């Protein structure tokens, strides 16, 4: 199968600090691909390089085998790179509905004029209803988003990203700050995204339970370098990985 997302020799320095060094790996459609490593290993930097917020010093990013290294971030998003953040980023002064519509706007890509003229796009309400049932969220539409608890916001951000019909989803620590029930819902959402919709999911997560549970393939970073790749079992027993994590623990 052709990979949907491929990184080829990505390098990035921040004033002498190596954040990524010759990182190469690929994500297949319909696969949940774990991206793990100790704190400061360069995971979030890599996500920022993939979504185009940072430009890599060297190397290329391919989406569906098309080179998108020079493509600006908003075009990448429109080409199908969706993402969520460690701390959910929503419009604080808008209601929940408007916030989620941003996802549908991205999915429809009808342009400002068509949207202004009220052209019909995808059925926002039906699609949202489906996703919210999986996420087990219900609320009053017109309420401010700032009133929602953190866990719900994190789930909603995945929902918003899925409303944009991405081909690749970059999901940054979805489990952090969630209770066990909510983690389950998040996994259900990611399962739906990858298995039913064929989205390639790149998942950063510290919860090893979640990684081991849901990922088909895992890439491990340490100090910006890939130190191991493979399935969950192989990674769990990899000596380099264990050392990296132990070293990381000592630093903390």
């Amino acid at each position, binding site marked *: 199968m052709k990979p949907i997302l491929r990184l080829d020799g990505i390098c990035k320095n921040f004033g002498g600090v190596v954040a990524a060094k010759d990182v190469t790996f690929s994500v297949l459609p319909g696969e949940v691909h774990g991206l793990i490593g100790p704190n400061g290993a360069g995971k979030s930097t890599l996500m920022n390089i993939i979504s185009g917020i940072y430009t890599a010093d060297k190397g290329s990013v391919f989406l569906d085998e098309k080179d998108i290294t020079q493509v600006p971030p908003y075009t990448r998003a429109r080409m199908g790179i969706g993402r969520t953040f460690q701390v959910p980023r929503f419009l604080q002064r808008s209601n929940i509905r408007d916030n989620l519509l*941003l996802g549908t706007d991205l999915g429809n890509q009808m342009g400002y004029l068509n949207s202004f003229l009220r052209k019909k796009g995808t059925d926002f309400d039906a699609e949202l209803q489906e996703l919210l049932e999986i996420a087990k969220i219900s609320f009053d539409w017109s309420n401010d988003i700032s009133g929602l608890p953190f866990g719900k916001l994190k789930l909603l951000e995945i929902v918003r990203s899925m409303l944009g019909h991405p081909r690749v989803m970059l999901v940054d620590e979805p489990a952090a700050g969630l209770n066990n029930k909510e983690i389950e819902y998040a996994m259900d959402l990611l399962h739906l995204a990858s298995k039913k919709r064929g989205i390639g999911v790149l998942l950063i997560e510290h919860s090893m339970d979640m990684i081991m549970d849901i990922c088909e393939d895992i890439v491990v970073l340490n100090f910006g370098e890939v130190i191991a790749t493979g399935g969950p079992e192989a990674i769990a027993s990899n000596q380099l990985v264990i050392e990296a994590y132990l070293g990381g623990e000592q630093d903390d």
Partner: protein
Amino acid sequence: MKRKFSPEAIVLVSLLVLFIIITPRVLSGYSMNVVNIALMFAIVAYGISVMLGMGGQLTFAAVSFMGGGAYFMANMCTDRLGINMPTLPALLLTPVVFAGIAFVIGLLLLKLSGTYFTFSTIALVQVTYAFYNNYKPLFGGADGISGIPTLNLFGYKFTSYNTWFYVLIFLVIIVAVIVELIRDSQLGRSLAAIRDNETAALTMGINVYMTKVIAFTIAGALAAFGGALWCMHGRFVGSDMFNYLNAAQFIIMAMLGGVNNTVGIFVGALLVKVLPEILRSLQSYMQLIWGFFIILLMVFMPTGLAGLYEQIKANIKHKLQKKREGAGQ
């Protein structure tokens, strides 16, 4: 989801209808003139609302475009340059021309962000004001341009302020509806996303730069439209209107009513123009009180009168809910 007419909307529409019916029957002459100017200012302030309220971009440029629209209109219709357009096509042409001009200027200035952009718009105001005030062939210099014909709508000439009122309130409503539609469209949401966090907006597929330029274009077109009306209404255009102080005044106007609220902008424009007239007896203290009022407003309700209203509404809702919960137990 079908939107139903809320009781709030019904009250607002009734108030508006009352306003339209009563105002021209009670007022005339000078006081009608004041109300009309407030309406034209509201059109300009709606442009600021799109930029600052929706997109969070503080711009002073409104007066530059308002002046542009006014002088354009004056030159098109007074035979100064040998052009003698009828007023209606000239009026309709103005926002189109200045949308184009604002688009080009926006392409340049919006390469800057935040405070840099704000500064560049202040500089723009200074540059345009210097030209408006000095360059006689196009702008009449310090004397301005007089003898501008009034609006001629298929043979009907609007000569009294009271008849003008109906035209203006009609246009204000149209502009307000357009702004409200923008708010509820992809453009409005994209601008809100930019206001909150530009990086997050980028990852949601929003072309931050282009979206800001489009907002700037809309604001420029609205300001020019307001300016064109203003010069026809007063039959005169002078440079004084388009200086830095008035630029600040427009921003204050928008903030006063509630910069991100369509009804708030309307109320804000009326207050800024009408309140000083009502309090005329205080004369020399008026400006002083005005200054204190602005500060108090920013301290206690930075989202303007509309924000205050929302807050009160939320409080009442909260209390009612508590009461209901109390009754349920």
